[in-house]
């Protein structure tokens, strides 16, 4: 049986009808229609599904959608208006932080969460903050450089 609920994603309220056991990731991808967050491992290992819930990073594959009702959900689509790139996304492009792109939404969200709690992280702090996110293409170096560059450009 489905339950009527409202999910607030990137500042917009979406009325949805959800299976009570559906994950936040599936609810946002299949019911809200925002497909930026990805299912990698479906096991909280890879971080491709990372979203912010009330500003905190959450593996959305492992969180029940109905528990997110009444809270602020942020996905990668919330980083910039459609067709535009935010400064962190631009830095990922400039520093070769993107190859196949599958991990990128999760990387960006983890990096945003890091910069919110620590606007001027060290190289080690960036690596630690992103170590719950797996990338099989870039070798991570470009991603770390992108986060450091975005922090520096923001005056961090």
């Amino acid at each position: 049986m489905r339950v009527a609920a409202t999910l607030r994603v990137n500042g917009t309220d979406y009325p949805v009808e959800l299976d009570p056991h559906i994950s936040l990731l599936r609810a946002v991808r299949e019911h809200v229609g925002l497909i930026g967050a990805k299912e990698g491992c479906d096991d909280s290992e890879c971080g491709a599904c990372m979203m912010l819930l009330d500003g905190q990073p959450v593996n959305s594959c492992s969180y029940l959608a109905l528990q997110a009702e009444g809270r602020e959900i942020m996905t990668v689509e919330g980083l910039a208006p459609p067709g535009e790139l935010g400064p962190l996304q631009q830095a990922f492009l400039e520093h070769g932080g993107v190859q196949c792109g599958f991990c990128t939404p999760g990387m960006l969200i983890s990096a945003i969460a890091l910069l919110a709690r620590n606007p001027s992280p060290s190289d080690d702090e960036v690596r630690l903050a992103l170590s719950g996110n797996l990338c099989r293409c870039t070798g991570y170096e470009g991603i770390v450089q992108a986060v450091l560059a975005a922090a520096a450009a923001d005056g961090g």
Partner: protein
Amino acid sequence: MTRSLTVASTLEEAVSALSGGARVVAGGTDLVVGQRQGKAPLPERLVAIHRLEQLARMSKDAGCLRIGALVTHATLAADPVVRSRLTALADACAIVGSHATRAFGTIGGNLMNASPAMETGGPLLCFDATVTLRSAGGARSLPVAELLVGPGRTAASPDELLEEVCLPLPQEGGGSAYVRLEYRRQMEIAVVGASAVLRFDGDALADARVAITALAPTIRRVPEAEAELAGSDGGPDAIAAGARAIAAAAAPISDVRGSADYRRAMAEVISRRAIETAAARARGADVPVPASGSAAW
């Protein structure tokens, strides 16, 4: 049966749902993952307790730190009292899962899932923690040592909700540490873990408590090792004897993360590091949290 999820807005509502056969979900970091790993299907009826603000608080009274069941690993790892007086617990909470796990995973969930590899169990045992379990019929208090009865099993009945964890604050002058063997910094589970809580009186160890993680069906204290350490000078020979006693008491399993032989061999190494770090902290050394991966061994 129909799937359901009740979002409880009062403690009474939560325990009433438990009496009706529902199971608790808080941060979801074990329960929801366990379903997909095939360990256990998600229970048909769930009661979510994330809105119970009174369970998300910490308070200090009568020499005890009271930690609500919903307090997250991130909160505990950052708390000044936990870091200074209950440092082994900060060591443990700082390395649970990833930033995301620590932001949503709770101390209540970590305890009630009762994994023999859980990070917080060893420190809680060594600090003599007790838990309050609440049901529709009332509340009872139980030492953590009696709560953990087997892999994934607790002494709580299905209609009981873990409400809070109570930690007596140790006397000043002690030191503690939790160290684990890990293959990866984040999203890792202890391959082998050890906790040590020590207090010197002058040059002698007046109090020594140690516990092992991922080395027995439950996390447990090791009295043989504590006997080696208590009354000693806490020097290298005493620490080595304590670590050997821990390895001798270990009864590990073989699984994908390590063979029983390897775990037994590493039990001595990891225990020695935990005891050394606790002793250094007890003597006033500033060993950063988390002890795992940050000390110079």
